[in-house]
């Protein structure tokens, strides 16, 4: 079953909130993981690991640096679904 973009955003927001303590409504498409959400590289890798698990996708390490914003991550995960 494929997740919709809205479902992916909601799921990502839950993961980010759990990892960082930010409220889920702070996690919106245009926010940058590093500049806006203050997420360091270790936290980013933790979020990626949980996102792979949750959405059943593979996010290659070399792809993670391209995921600057929450929107980038939603787009990538949506496209990576089988």
């Amino acid at each position, binding site marked *: 079953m494929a997740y919709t973009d809205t479902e992916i955003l909601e799921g990502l927001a839950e993961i980010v909130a*759990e*990892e*960082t*303590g930010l409220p889920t409504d702070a996690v919106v498409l245009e926010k940058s993981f590093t500049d806006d959400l203050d997420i360091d590289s*270790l936290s980013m*890798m*933790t979020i990626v*690991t949980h996102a*792979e*698990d949750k959405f059943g996708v*593979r996010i290659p390490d070399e792809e993670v640096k391209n995921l600057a914003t929450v929107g980038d991550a939603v787009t990538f995960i949506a496209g990576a679904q089988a």
Partner: protein
Amino acid sequence: MTAPRDVVVTGLGATTPLGGDAVSTWTAALAGESGARTLENDWAEKYGIPVTFAATIKVKPDEVLARPEIKRMDPSAQYAIIATREAWADAGLAGAEVDGERLGAVVSSGIGGIWTTLDGWDTLRERGARRMLPMTVPMLMPNSPAAYVELEIGARAGAHAMVSACASGAEAIGYGVEMIRNGRADVVVAGGTEATIHPMPIAAFAASRTLSLRNDDPAGASRPYDVDRDGFVVGEGAAVVVLESAEHAAARGARVYARIAGVGLSSDAYHITSPDPEGRGQVAAMRRALENAGATGRDVVHVNAHATSTKVGDLTETASIRSLLGGEADHVLLSATKSMTGHLLGGAGALETLFTVKAVHERLAPPTINVAKPDPELQVPLVRDVPAALPAGDVVALNNSFGFGGHNVALVVTNA
């Protein structure tokens, strides 16, 4: 040569089987409560573990820490941070300006992040390397609690983690004292932590035949010096103290609980788990601590014993005290607080130092519970069931901590 700088205790913090902070832990200890309880899990049934109880922490970390803190720290570091926040505030340092270059953190664990280690191994075996969480290494390393405390308070004079089994917490405090004495720091947060109530270490301790099997009576299971003792009770938790040079404490008008006046260390070079039956290492540690404090055996009024409630360990210790103090041992009040807290392993020496500081400050030696029939070989007067008053005037107390590997640590606590 100048005299070593006086080191005083200005803050106390803990989270233990008796309470979620130092104050409630001490109150429960004076009341003779037990922190041991039946475990609410299926470990015994699932794995065939013969022990079904432990001294679990009274207040769960998720009641006091934020969710991201829980996720980023092994329980051993969570306990250390809870204790640190209390001690830091208790010392009047929360929000105060402290020079980070003159501030140290020394927080030990006997075993390290074993929950993280074993969870990581389960994840790898069951789900593969891509499911391994990136925070695994910084969570499992045994210096992780020290590092989190260093981050918490902004300590840049050094962060250290002594690993000496059940002497770790006392050795950490001794190291913190040395940091201040030798001029490396003015303030040090020092203590110990442990989080080993997990089926693997409990099964492993049970395999070594060192644990009490009194499953039908957890609260009565830890009974040091009782003829019916049958081993120790695993405990968990943390305790930390804020150590400060006397000058630094006086300059800011801090409340002072007591002095840590002497540090004594030794090793047995005898056996990996048994103490030297002659007690040579234990005597050496206590003697060195007293010499270091400029005190003599005549001055000692109270000893918080290591006393885990194994026959060989408990009796070797009181024989060591008798050997060191001779007839003066008749005037010593001996407390074995593991009868109430269980054995916090790497946290034990720190919690028992905290108790010794409180005992000296409040002039009350905490009780030893569960001693229905005192062992006739016990060689020092035992404080039983209710607290005993310490004399007025200048007093000297000892905290003893001994660990597998033959590590011996004795700390001398005096009134300020």
